[in-house]
Protein backbone atom coordinates (compact mmCIF):
# COMPACT_ATOMS: atom_id res chain seq x y z
CA UNK A 1 0.00 0.00 0.00
CA UNK A 2 1.56 3.24 -1.11
CA UNK A 3 0.51 5.25 1.94
CA UNK A 4 2.17 3.03 4.52
CA UNK A 5 5.32 5.08 5.00
CA UNK A 6 3.26 8.19 5.25
CA UNK A 7 0.87 6.88 7.87
CA UNK A 8 3.71 5.97 10.19
CA UNK A 9 4.81 9.59 10.48
CA UNK A 10 1.29 10.93 10.80
CA UNK A 11 -0.43 11.40 14.22
CA UNK A 12 -2.37 8.43 15.57
CA UNK A 13 -5.59 7.72 13.72
CA UNK A 14 -8.57 8.89 15.79
CA UNK A 15 -11.28 8.39 13.22
CA UNK A 16 -13.56 5.53 14.08
CA UNK A 17 -15.31 5.66 10.72
CA UNK A 18 -12.47 4.82 8.33
CA UNK A 19 -11.91 1.14 8.80
CA UNK A 20 -9.21 0.79 6.15
CA UNK A 21 -7.01 3.08 8.25
CA UNK A 22 -7.61 1.16 11.47
CA UNK A 23 -7.22 -2.34 10.15
CA UNK A 24 -3.97 -3.09 8.35
CA UNK A 25 -5.48 -5.92 6.38
CA UNK A 26 -8.76 -4.31 5.33
CA UNK A 27 -11.28 -6.75 3.99
CA UNK A 28 -11.60 -4.77 0.80
CA UNK A 29 -8.24 -6.00 -0.51
CA UNK A 30 -9.04 -9.64 0.25
CA UNK A 31 -12.02 -10.04 -2.00
CA UNK A 32 -11.84 -7.81 -5.07
CA UNK A 33 -15.23 -6.99 -6.53
CA UNK A 34 -16.31 -5.13 -9.66
CA UNK A 35 -17.72 -1.67 -8.88
CA UNK A 36 -21.36 -2.66 -9.27
CA UNK A 37 -21.09 -4.84 -6.19
CA UNK A 38 -21.15 -1.58 -4.26
CA UNK A 39 -24.76 -1.10 -5.39
CA UNK A 40 -25.87 -3.40 -2.58
CA UNK A 41 -24.79 -0.63 -0.21
CA UNK A 42 -26.86 1.82 -2.24
CA UNK A 43 -29.87 -0.46 -1.67
CA UNK A 44 -29.24 -0.44 2.09
CA UNK A 45 -28.86 3.35 1.89
CA UNK A 46 -32.25 3.66 0.13
CA UNK A 47 -33.90 1.56 2.84
CA UNK A 48 -32.16 3.66 5.48
CA UNK A 49 -33.00 6.98 3.79
CA UNK A 50 -36.69 6.06 3.56
CA UNK A 51 -36.64 5.25 7.29
CA UNK A 52 -35.01 8.63 7.95
CA UNK A 53 -37.77 10.48 6.12
CA UNK A 54 -40.77 8.39 7.16
CA UNK A 55 -39.85 8.41 10.84
CA UNK A 56 -39.15 12.17 10.56
CA UNK A 57 -35.61 11.65 11.90
CA UNK A 58 -34.50 14.29 9.39
CA UNK A 59 -37.04 16.81 10.70
CA UNK A 60 -35.58 19.98 12.19
CA UNK A 61 -38.65 20.09 14.44
CA UNK A 62 -38.05 16.59 15.85
CA UNK A 63 -34.44 17.45 16.71
CA UNK A 64 -35.61 20.63 18.44
CA UNK A 65 -38.25 18.67 20.36
CA UNK A 66 -35.54 16.24 21.43
CA UNK A 67 -33.31 18.96 22.86
CA UNK A 68 -36.30 20.76 24.39
CA UNK A 69 -37.47 17.48 25.97
CA UNK A 70 -40.84 17.91 24.30
CA UNK A 71 -40.90 14.54 22.59
CA UNK A 72 -39.69 11.03 23.30
CA UNK A 73 -39.52 10.22 19.58
CA UNK A 74 -35.79 10.68 18.87
CA UNK A 75 -34.76 9.12 22.18
CA UNK A 76 -36.92 6.14 21.27
CA UNK A 77 -35.39 5.84 17.79
CA UNK A 78 -31.77 6.07 18.97
CA UNK A 79 -32.40 3.89 22.05
CA UNK A 80 -34.13 1.15 20.06
CA UNK A 81 -31.43 1.38 17.39
CA UNK A 82 -28.69 0.83 19.96
CA UNK A 83 -30.53 -2.11 21.57
CA UNK A 84 -31.15 -3.80 18.19
CA UNK A 85 -27.57 -3.06 17.08
CA UNK A 86 -26.09 -4.36 20.34
CA UNK A 87 -28.11 -7.58 20.25
CA UNK A 88 -27.04 -8.10 16.62
CA UNK A 89 -23.37 -7.52 17.42
CA UNK A 90 -23.61 -9.82 20.44
CA UNK A 91 -25.06 -12.61 18.27
CA UNK A 92 -22.50 -12.03 15.51
CA UNK A 93 -19.68 -12.34 18.04
CA UNK A 94 -21.23 -15.30 19.85
CA UNK A 95 -21.72 -17.35 16.68
CA UNK A 96 -18.59 -15.96 14.98
CA UNK A 97 -20.78 -15.08 12.02
CA UNK A 98 -19.20 -14.41 8.64
CA UNK A 99 -20.00 -12.05 5.78
CA UNK A 100 -21.89 -13.20 2.69
CA UNK A 101 -18.43 -13.65 1.08
CA UNK A 102 -17.37 -15.92 3.92
CA UNK A 103 -14.99 -13.48 5.56
CA UNK A 104 -14.83 -13.16 9.34
CA UNK A 105 -16.62 -10.12 10.78
CA UNK A 106 -14.19 -8.01 12.77
CA UNK A 107 -14.51 -5.16 15.25
CA UNK A 108 -12.00 -2.50 16.19
CA UNK A 109 -11.91 -0.93 19.64
CA UNK A 110 -12.09 2.84 19.87
CA UNK A 111 -9.57 4.74 21.92
CA UNK A 112 -10.47 7.69 24.06
CA UNK A 113 -9.17 11.16 23.21
CA UNK A 114 -10.19 14.73 24.01
CA UNK A 115 -11.78 15.02 20.58
CA UNK A 116 -14.74 13.00 21.78
CA UNK A 117 -15.40 15.74 24.37
CA UNK A 118 -14.42 18.90 22.47
CA UNK A 119 -15.37 17.72 19.00
CA UNK A 120 -18.48 16.04 20.38
CA UNK A 121 -19.67 19.32 21.91
CA UNK A 122 -18.92 21.24 18.70
CA UNK A 123 -20.86 18.65 16.72
CA UNK A 124 -23.78 18.94 19.14
CA UNK A 125 -23.87 22.72 18.72
CA UNK A 126 -24.10 22.29 14.96
CA UNK A 127 -26.61 19.46 15.21
CA UNK A 128 -29.10 21.66 17.10
CA UNK A 129 -28.64 24.47 14.54
CA UNK A 130 -29.02 22.49 11.32
CA UNK A 131 -31.42 19.94 12.85
CA UNK A 132 -29.47 17.29 11.02
CA UNK A 133 -26.41 15.14 11.51
CA UNK A 134 -24.51 14.08 8.37
CA UNK A 135 -26.85 11.23 7.36
CA UNK A 136 -30.02 13.33 7.48
CA UNK A 137 -28.29 16.11 5.50
CA UNK A 138 -28.11 13.73 2.53
CA UNK A 139 -31.72 12.61 3.03
CA UNK A 140 -32.96 16.22 3.31
CA UNK A 141 -31.36 17.02 -0.04
CA UNK A 142 -33.14 13.96 -1.47
CA UNK A 143 -36.51 15.25 -0.27
CA UNK A 144 -35.99 18.30 -2.47
CA UNK A 145 -34.59 20.75 0.10
CA UNK A 146 -31.78 21.62 -2.31
CA UNK A 147 -30.54 24.54 -0.22
CA UNK A 148 -29.22 21.95 2.24
CA UNK A 149 -26.49 21.31 -0.37
CA UNK A 150 -25.01 24.53 1.05
CA UNK A 151 -25.09 23.06 4.57
CA UNK A 152 -23.47 19.87 3.29
CA UNK A 153 -20.73 21.81 1.46
CA UNK A 154 -20.14 23.77 4.65
CA UNK A 155 -19.86 20.50 6.60
CA UNK A 156 -17.30 19.30 4.06
CA UNK A 157 -15.46 22.60 4.53
CA UNK A 158 -15.57 22.06 8.31
CA UNK A 159 -14.09 18.61 7.86
CA UNK A 160 -11.35 20.05 5.65
CA UNK A 161 -10.49 22.80 8.14
CA UNK A 162 -10.33 20.20 10.91
CA UNK A 163 -7.88 18.19 8.79
CA UNK A 164 -5.81 21.33 8.18
CA UNK A 165 -5.51 22.26 11.88
CA UNK A 166 -5.53 18.73 13.26
CA UNK A 167 -1.89 18.74 14.42
CA UNK A 168 -2.45 21.91 16.42
CA UNK A 169 -5.61 20.82 18.25
CA UNK A 170 -5.66 19.11 21.67
CA UNK A 171 -5.79 15.33 21.32
Amino acid at each position, binding site marked *: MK*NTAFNQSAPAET*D*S*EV*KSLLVTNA*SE*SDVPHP*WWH*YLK*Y*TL*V*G*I*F*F*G*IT*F*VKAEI*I*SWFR*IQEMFRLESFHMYGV*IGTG*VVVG*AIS*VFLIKKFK*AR*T*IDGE*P*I*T*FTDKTFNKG*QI*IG*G*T*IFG*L*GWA*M*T*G*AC*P*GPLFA*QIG*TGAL*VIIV*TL*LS*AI*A*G*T*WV*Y*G*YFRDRLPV
Partner: protein
Amino acid sequence: MELLTQPWSWWVAGIFVGLTVPILLFLGNKQFGISGNLRHICAACIPANIPFFKYDWKKETWNLFFVVGIILGGVISTLWLKDPNPIQVHPNLVNDLAAVGVTNIDGLVPADLFSWDSLLTVRGFVLMVVGGFLVGFGSRYAGGCTSGHAIMGLSTLQWPSLVATIFFMVGGFLMTHLILPFILAL
Protein backbone atom coordinates in the same frame (compact mmCIF):
# COMPACT_ATOMS: atom_id res chain seq x y z
CA MET B 1 -50.01 1.53 1.68
CA GLU B 2 -51.35 3.80 4.40
CA LEU B 3 -49.04 2.03 6.83
CA LEU B 4 -46.13 3.19 4.68
CA THR B 5 -47.25 6.77 4.11
CA GLN B 6 -48.20 7.67 7.67
CA PRO B 7 -45.28 8.70 9.92
CA TRP B 8 -43.46 5.62 11.23
CA SER B 9 -43.31 5.13 14.96
CA TRP B 10 -40.06 5.44 16.89
CA TRP B 11 -39.76 1.73 17.53
CA VAL B 12 -40.16 0.74 13.87
CA ALA B 13 -37.55 3.33 12.90
CA GLY B 14 -35.29 2.26 15.77
CA ILE B 15 -35.40 -1.37 14.67
CA PHE B 16 -34.55 -0.42 11.07
CA VAL B 17 -31.74 1.92 12.14
CA GLY B 18 -30.37 -0.77 14.45
CA LEU B 19 -30.57 -3.42 11.73
CA THR B 20 -28.33 -1.30 9.51
CA VAL B 21 -25.46 -2.34 11.81
CA PRO B 22 -25.63 -6.11 11.15
CA ILE B 23 -26.67 -5.64 7.50
CA LEU B 24 -23.48 -3.68 6.72
CA LEU B 25 -21.42 -6.20 8.68
CA PHE B 26 -22.94 -9.15 6.82
CA LEU B 27 -22.62 -7.50 3.41
CA GLY B 28 -18.92 -6.84 3.68
CA ASN B 29 -17.64 -6.36 7.25
CA LYS B 30 -18.47 -2.65 7.01
CA GLN B 31 -18.89 -0.33 9.95
CA PHE B 32 -21.86 2.00 10.02
CA GLY B 33 -20.63 5.61 10.07
CA ILE B 34 -21.83 8.32 7.74
CA SER B 35 -19.73 11.41 8.52
CA GLY B 36 -16.58 9.56 7.40
CA ASN B 37 -17.85 10.27 3.88
CA LEU B 38 -17.21 13.98 4.37
CA ARG B 39 -13.56 13.09 4.93
CA HIS B 40 -13.54 10.81 1.89
CA ILE B 41 -14.94 13.63 -0.24
CA CYS B 42 -12.12 15.90 0.99
CA ALA B 43 -9.58 13.16 0.34
CA ALA B 44 -10.93 12.58 -3.16
CA CYS B 45 -11.48 16.19 -4.24
CA ILE B 46 -9.37 18.62 -2.19
CA PRO B 47 -6.60 16.72 -0.33
CA ALA B 48 -4.21 19.72 -0.65
CA ASN B 49 -1.30 17.64 0.63
CA ILE B 50 -2.83 17.57 4.14
CA PRO B 51 -1.77 14.36 5.96
CA PHE B 52 -5.32 13.77 7.26
CA PHE B 53 -6.57 13.45 3.68
CA LYS B 54 -3.72 11.37 2.27
CA TYR B 55 -5.07 7.85 2.41
CA ASP B 56 -6.57 5.37 0.04
CA TRP B 57 -10.15 6.71 0.11
CA LYS B 58 -11.10 4.28 -2.68
CA LYS B 59 -11.17 1.53 -0.05
CA GLU B 60 -14.13 3.36 1.48
CA THR B 61 -16.04 3.73 -1.80
CA TRP B 62 -18.83 1.50 -0.46
CA ASN B 63 -19.77 4.25 2.00
CA LEU B 64 -20.14 6.84 -0.78
CA PHE B 65 -22.48 4.39 -2.55
CA PHE B 66 -24.35 4.08 0.75
CA VAL B 67 -25.00 7.84 1.07
CA VAL B 68 -26.10 8.04 -2.57
CA GLY B 69 -28.72 5.50 -1.46
CA ILE B 70 -29.74 7.78 1.42
CA ILE B 71 -30.31 10.63 -1.06
CA LEU B 72 -32.37 8.29 -3.28
CA GLY B 73 -34.32 7.16 -0.20
CA GLY B 74 -35.22 10.81 0.36
CA VAL B 75 -36.35 11.11 -3.26
CA ILE B 76 -38.44 7.92 -3.16
CA SER B 77 -40.19 8.73 0.10
CA THR B 78 -41.03 12.22 -1.15
CA LEU B 79 -42.30 11.08 -4.54
CA TRP B 80 -44.27 7.99 -3.53
CA LEU B 81 -44.57 7.68 0.25
CA LYS B 82 -45.44 11.23 1.21
CA ASP B 83 -47.77 11.68 4.16
CA PRO B 84 -50.74 13.83 3.02
CA ASN B 85 -51.42 15.03 6.59
CA PRO B 86 -49.71 18.05 8.16
CA ILE B 87 -46.71 17.32 10.35
CA GLN B 88 -47.35 17.30 14.11
CA VAL B 89 -45.18 19.71 16.09
CA HIS B 90 -45.26 20.28 19.85
CA PRO B 91 -47.42 23.39 20.60
CA ASN B 92 -44.74 25.02 22.78
CA LEU B 93 -42.25 24.80 19.93
CA VAL B 94 -44.85 26.17 17.49
CA ASN B 95 -45.45 29.14 19.81
CA ASP B 96 -41.76 29.87 20.37
CA LEU B 97 -41.09 29.71 16.63
CA ALA B 98 -44.07 31.93 15.83
CA ALA B 99 -42.60 34.54 18.19
CA VAL B 100 -39.54 34.80 15.95
CA GLY B 101 -41.51 34.82 12.71
CA VAL B 102 -41.25 31.13 11.85
CA THR B 103 -44.84 30.27 11.06
CA ASN B 104 -44.50 27.74 8.25
CA ILE B 105 -44.26 24.38 9.96
CA ASP B 106 -45.09 22.28 6.90
CA GLY B 107 -42.54 19.74 5.86
CA LEU B 108 -39.46 18.41 7.59
CA VAL B 109 -37.17 21.37 6.95
CA PRO B 110 -38.69 24.71 8.06
CA ALA B 111 -38.81 26.83 4.90
CA ASP B 112 -38.75 30.07 6.92
CA LEU B 113 -35.26 29.18 8.13
CA PHE B 114 -33.80 26.94 5.43
CA SER B 115 -34.33 28.34 1.95
CA TRP B 116 -32.32 30.16 -0.72
CA ASP B 117 -33.90 33.46 0.37
CA SER B 118 -33.08 32.72 3.99
CA LEU B 119 -29.48 31.97 3.07
CA LEU B 120 -29.02 35.66 2.29
CA THR B 121 -30.16 36.67 5.79
CA VAL B 122 -27.87 36.63 8.83
CA ARG B 123 -30.11 34.10 10.59
CA GLY B 124 -30.27 31.69 7.67
CA PHE B 125 -26.55 32.03 6.93
CA VAL B 126 -25.64 31.26 10.55
CA LEU B 127 -27.99 28.25 10.73
CA MET B 128 -26.95 26.70 7.42
CA VAL B 129 -23.34 27.72 6.84
CA VAL B 130 -22.03 28.04 10.41
CA GLY B 131 -24.17 25.12 11.61
CA GLY B 132 -22.99 22.90 8.77
CA PHE B 133 -19.38 23.87 9.43
CA LEU B 134 -19.70 22.89 13.11
CA VAL B 135 -21.27 19.55 12.16
CA GLY B 136 -18.39 18.74 9.81
CA PHE B 137 -15.61 20.02 12.04
CA GLY B 138 -17.03 18.52 15.24
CA SER B 139 -17.87 15.10 13.86
CA ARG B 140 -14.38 14.60 12.50
CA TYR B 141 -12.74 15.93 15.66
CA ALA B 142 -14.91 13.51 17.65
CA GLY B 143 -13.97 10.71 15.24
CA GLY B 144 -17.54 10.00 14.26
CA CYS B 145 -21.12 11.25 14.33
CA THR B 146 -24.47 9.98 15.51
CA SER B 147 -24.21 6.86 13.35
CA GLY B 148 -20.55 6.05 14.01
CA HIS B 149 -20.56 6.75 17.74
CA ALA B 150 -24.14 6.71 19.02
CA ILE B 151 -25.37 3.73 16.99
CA MET B 152 -22.30 1.71 15.91
CA GLY B 153 -20.10 2.65 18.86
CA LEU B 154 -22.70 2.03 21.55
CA SER B 155 -23.82 -1.20 19.85
CA THR B 156 -20.26 -2.50 20.18
CA LEU B 157 -20.08 -1.24 23.80
CA GLN B 158 -17.27 1.25 23.18
CA TRP B 159 -17.09 3.62 26.15
CA PRO B 160 -15.34 6.41 24.15
CA SER B 161 -18.46 6.41 21.97
CA LEU B 162 -20.60 6.88 25.07
CA VAL B 163 -18.45 9.89 25.98
CA ALA B 164 -18.89 11.28 22.46
CA THR B 165 -22.66 10.67 22.50
CA ILE B 166 -23.02 12.41 25.88
CA PHE B 167 -21.16 15.44 24.56
CA PHE B 168 -23.22 15.47 21.32
CA MET B 169 -26.19 15.92 23.64
CA VAL B 170 -24.38 18.49 25.82
CA GLY B 171 -23.64 20.58 22.72
CA GLY B 172 -27.20 20.21 21.50
CA PHE B 173 -28.72 21.29 24.81
CA LEU B 174 -26.31 24.25 25.09
CA MET B 175 -27.20 25.43 21.59
CA THR B 176 -30.95 24.89 21.92
CA HIS B 177 -31.36 26.59 25.30
CA LEU B 178 -28.58 29.18 25.50
CA ILE B 179 -27.58 30.21 21.97
CA LEU B 180 -30.31 29.30 19.46
CA PRO B 181 -32.90 31.74 20.93
CA PHE B 182 -30.51 34.59 20.02
CA ILE B 183 -29.82 33.21 16.54
CA LEU B 184 -33.53 32.75 15.84
CA ALA B 185 -34.18 36.36 16.98
CA LEU B 186 -31.65 37.73 14.44
